[in-house]
């Protein structure tokens, strides 16, 4: 491997650092010992974001590209804050202001540029320093000083109405100073805009309180110790406390000029970014002049760095830079501006597409040359900038439809009704079904969404289009829609809705599940329908119900909750969660005797003895000698409560004894789904009464709020207040009435939260409290009948109702 060459880079700005990065990316570390001179005491930073720092939208730290460590890590020697004084081409070395001498084999000049400061009278103090209040807008330090000085000042002037000038103005406004922009040219941003656009921009800026003076040639800075104003060639003047000079850039090319390289506005370079005079010396960025252009933007500078790196490392010896396409975007005073390429048509072959809406501050102009975008100006609405800039950069052929270049058309269509949908509109993506196919299916005789879905498979994928399909079918059937009736059956096995089913059972005196199948289902038994029917018949007939045990789910046959291993969980009744040492003793003994693997406190304030064998159930019940807690059935389960008034500091109502009353009243009542209740002694809701099927919450003045339809399971819902009552008795009355109404009207397995949402609390309140349907007393009678019919099922321990009811394994006869 040949020994490394010395590569020296003068300048540590975006250009220099970027060039070095590109070189490293091409294995430059093995080719060169790299040394850099940087006259700013930082690692390099992203100059194009400077204005963000000035206007406070970004932190300084955020715009640094490479922290100082980066140089170490990459074995780069960086002379921080050392200004390169001269290049000695004959001895091929660079002299630093601190006396450093760095010999080079290859040299990169990336000295960047400085603000162009017009020769103004009174710009400096006698000692040559800028007069206090005079600033250029260029470096991080400039930003800091400007910000520092601006605080508490009244008025600032910005010399220069170009991109940088306007950004400075925008920054200054944030410090609450009144800003005037002074532009030498006849209109603002003359590099990027045309007079029309500039005029609109001017109006907007003036509306925002920024003064704009056009065609003004500044001649002097006024003020003795500090800036007090400006004077212009036309002898007019302007008072101000500070002046920021942003009148363009002046490439730092002296060092190159002094060592005999050709310099016009900047160092002249060839397509490899080499000085046209010296193949060992490259120049990149704002100090380089390529085909007459000096670029002050980041994109071109990076393109140059790539080519330079490709060439200097030999990675691509034939790499060449052919100039950059210039596009800029900025926000001035809240006005968004995007500009690219040429601003005026070169000749009549150029096609111009234009749209103006001065009132709104909108201006759009495209210049199209043989089908490709040659230039564009967007003001106000720049929504198409992203696309246009790409078309401009990449020279993609432009769509014929010019309008679409200026405006977003063909954007997602607004919501249309199913009638409006075209026949070929895709309805179901999963199964590629369009509207026409659905209509055909309907005309083919399918008149229910369900049927159509099964036939066409629409909606049978991710299911998201089901509602859409239903809509279309409904519309297509207009009127003769037969929606699938089965969804309304109370149980799948009997083709009747709940009201019809109740009616039929009453009229035809059907008191057993088997009778219902016989009469109403053509004798066809359906296992899944049995428990639902059992529960309903019990609701209808209470005492007269003919109980057939095979219709019950196993839990209801043996009055305990079956566990995954086939054993059962036993939960005795403990009203209000209030128990006694004696009960606890019995529970403990029983748990031991039947060696329950686990004894657990339940969420319903009871005690669960788990892992009991089926055949032991009767025995444990006898030993416990407590009633069933019904913790296994679609019935009233429990009523949780807090300590209430007895001992609690906050209690305003006696929740415990109310809970006990409720339990003794409603114990064992069966329902379409389980019922979990609670009472709370105050709105602190310790017993979670607001999220129960029914909950009573004590409020000031000894009153009770009754909540219904709460849930805190997989579904969480705060209950709705049914009514507020004055006594325990009323709580019992309305709770029972509500529950009977729920028993009669809820779908099987529909919890109260679903029921209340479906019926609506207003309706329910009017029926239960306002007796709007005049059924209140009937409801009360009905529930009382069921209450009267209550038997503790655990008494079956003494006389089982079916043969071998509790045996899990039987011997054979012979």
């Amino acid at each position: 491997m040949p020994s490394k060459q010395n590569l020296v880079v003068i300048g540590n700005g975006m250009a220099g650092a970027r060039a070095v990065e590109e070189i490293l990316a091409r294995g430059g570390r093995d080719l060169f010992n790299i040394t850099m001179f940087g006259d700013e005491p930082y690692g390099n930073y992203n100059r194009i974001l400077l204005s963000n720092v000035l206007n406070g939208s970004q932190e300084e730290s955020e715009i640094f590209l490479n922290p100082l460590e980066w140089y170490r890590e990459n074995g780069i020697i960086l002379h921080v804050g050392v200004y390169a004084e001269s290049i000695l081409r004959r001895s091929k070395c660079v002299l630093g202001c601190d006396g450093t001498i760095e010999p080079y084999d290859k040299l990169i000049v990336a000295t960047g540029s400085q603000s162009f400061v017009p020769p103004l009278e009174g710009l400096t103090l006698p000692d040559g320093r800028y007069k206090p209040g005079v600033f250029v807008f260029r470096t991080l330090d400039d930003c800091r000083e400007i910000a520092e000085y601006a605080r508490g000042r009244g008025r600032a002037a910005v010399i220069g109405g170009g991109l940088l000038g306007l950004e400075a103005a925008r920054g200054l406004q944030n410090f609450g100073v009144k800003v005037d922009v002074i532009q030498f040219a006849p209109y603002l941003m003359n590099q990027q805009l045309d007079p029309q656009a500039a005029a609109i921009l001017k109006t907007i800026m003036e509306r925002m309180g920024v003064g704009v003076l056009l065609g003004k040639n500044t001649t002097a800075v006024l003020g003795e110790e500090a800036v007090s104003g400006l004077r212009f060639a036309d002898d007019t003047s302007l008072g101000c406390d500070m002046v920021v000079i942003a009148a363009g850039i002046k490439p730092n090319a002296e060092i190159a000029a002094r060592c005999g390289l050709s310099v016009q506005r900047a160092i002249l370079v060839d397509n490899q970014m080499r000085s046209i005079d010296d193949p060992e010396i490259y120049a990149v960025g704002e100090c380089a002049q390529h085909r007459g252009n000096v670029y002050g933007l980041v994109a071109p500078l990076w393109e140059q760095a790539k080519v330079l790196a490709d060439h200097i490392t030999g990675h691509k010896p034939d790499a060449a830079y052919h100039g950059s396409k210039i596009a800029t975007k900025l926000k001035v005073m809240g006005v968004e501006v995007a500009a690219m390429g040429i601003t005026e048509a070169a000749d009549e072959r150029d096609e111009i597409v234009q749209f103006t809406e001065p009132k709104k501050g909108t201006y759009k102009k495209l210049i199209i040359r043989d089908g490709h975008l040659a230039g564009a100006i967007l003001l106000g609405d720049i929504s198409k900038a992203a696309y246009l800039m790409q078309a401009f950069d990449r020279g993609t052929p432009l769509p014929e439809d010019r309008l679409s270049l200026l405006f977003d058309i063909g954007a997602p269509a607004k919501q249309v009704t199913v009638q409006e949908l075209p026949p070929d509109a895709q309805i179901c993506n999963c199964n590629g079904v369009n509207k026409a196919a659905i209509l055909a299916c309907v005309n083919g005789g399918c008149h229910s969404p369900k049927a159509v879905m099964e036939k066409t498979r629409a909606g049978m994928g991710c299911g998201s289009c089901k509602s859409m399909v239903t809509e279309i079918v409904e519309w297509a059937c207009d009127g003769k829609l037969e929606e699938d009736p089965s969804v309304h059956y109370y149980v799948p096995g009997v083709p009747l809705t709940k009201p019809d089913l109740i009616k039929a059972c009453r009229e035809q005196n059907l008191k057993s599940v088997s009778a219902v199948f016989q009469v109403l289902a053509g004798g066809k038994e359906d296992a899944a329908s049995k428990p639902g029917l059992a529960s309903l018949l019990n609701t209808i007939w209470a005492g007269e119900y003919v109980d057939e045990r095979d219709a019950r789910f196993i839990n209801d046959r043996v009055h305990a909750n079956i566990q995954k291993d086939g054993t059962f969980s036993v939960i005795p009744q403990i009203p209000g969660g209030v128990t006694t040492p004696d009960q606890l003793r019995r529970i403990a003994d029983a748990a031991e005797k039947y060696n329950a693997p686990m004894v657990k406190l339940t969420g319903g304030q009871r005690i669960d003895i788990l892992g009991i064998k089926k055949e032991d159930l009767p025995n444990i019940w006898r030993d416990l000698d407590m009633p069933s807690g019904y913790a296994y059935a679609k019935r009233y389960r429990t009523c949780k409560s807090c300590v209430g008034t007895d001992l609690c500091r906050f209690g305003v109502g006696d929740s415990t004894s109310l809970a006990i009353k409720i339990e003794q009243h409603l114990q064992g009542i069966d329902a379409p789904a389980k019922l979990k209740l609670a009472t709370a002694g105050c709105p602190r809701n310790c017993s979670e009464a607001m999220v129960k099927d029914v909950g009573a919450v004590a409020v000031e003045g000894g009153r009770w709020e009754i909540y219904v339809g709460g849930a805190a399971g997989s579904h969480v819902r705060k209950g709705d207040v049914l009514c507020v009552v004055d006594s325990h008795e009323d709580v019992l009355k309305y709770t029972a009435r509500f529950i009977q109404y729920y028993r009669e009207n809820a779908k099987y397995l529909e919890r109260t939260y679903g029921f209340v949402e479906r019926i609506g609390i207003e309706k329910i309140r009017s029926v239960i409290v306002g007796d709007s349907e005049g059924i209140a007393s009937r409801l009360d009678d009905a529930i009382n009948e069921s209450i009267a019919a209550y038997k503790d099922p655990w008494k079956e321990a003494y006389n089982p109702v079916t043969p071998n009811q509790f045996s899990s394994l039987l011997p054979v006869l012979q």
Partner: protein
Amino acid sequence: MTVVAPLSAIPAGEGRTFLVSGKRIAVFRTRSDEVFATQADCPHKAGPLADGLLGGTTLVCPLHSWKWDLASGEPLMASCPLETYPVHLDSEERIVLTLNSE
């Protein structure tokens, strides 16, 4: 041939589990007094099939509601069939079962 039990040992529409020569077997009696016999434990998670719900000759496991046809043992909503055993009522209304091995 095993005489399992009198028909009356099983309530109509329910099942019971019997120990037949060391093997646990579920025997069912439909409401129309037909009898069937299958393996005792659900192949899914060993649920006690005899505790399941019956609808005609459809059996539903109490644990996860897998379904079979008692007559054939074929799954109606499950992954695998049930082992079934020939079983009938003798003149004295007793349930008589034949283990496949016999």
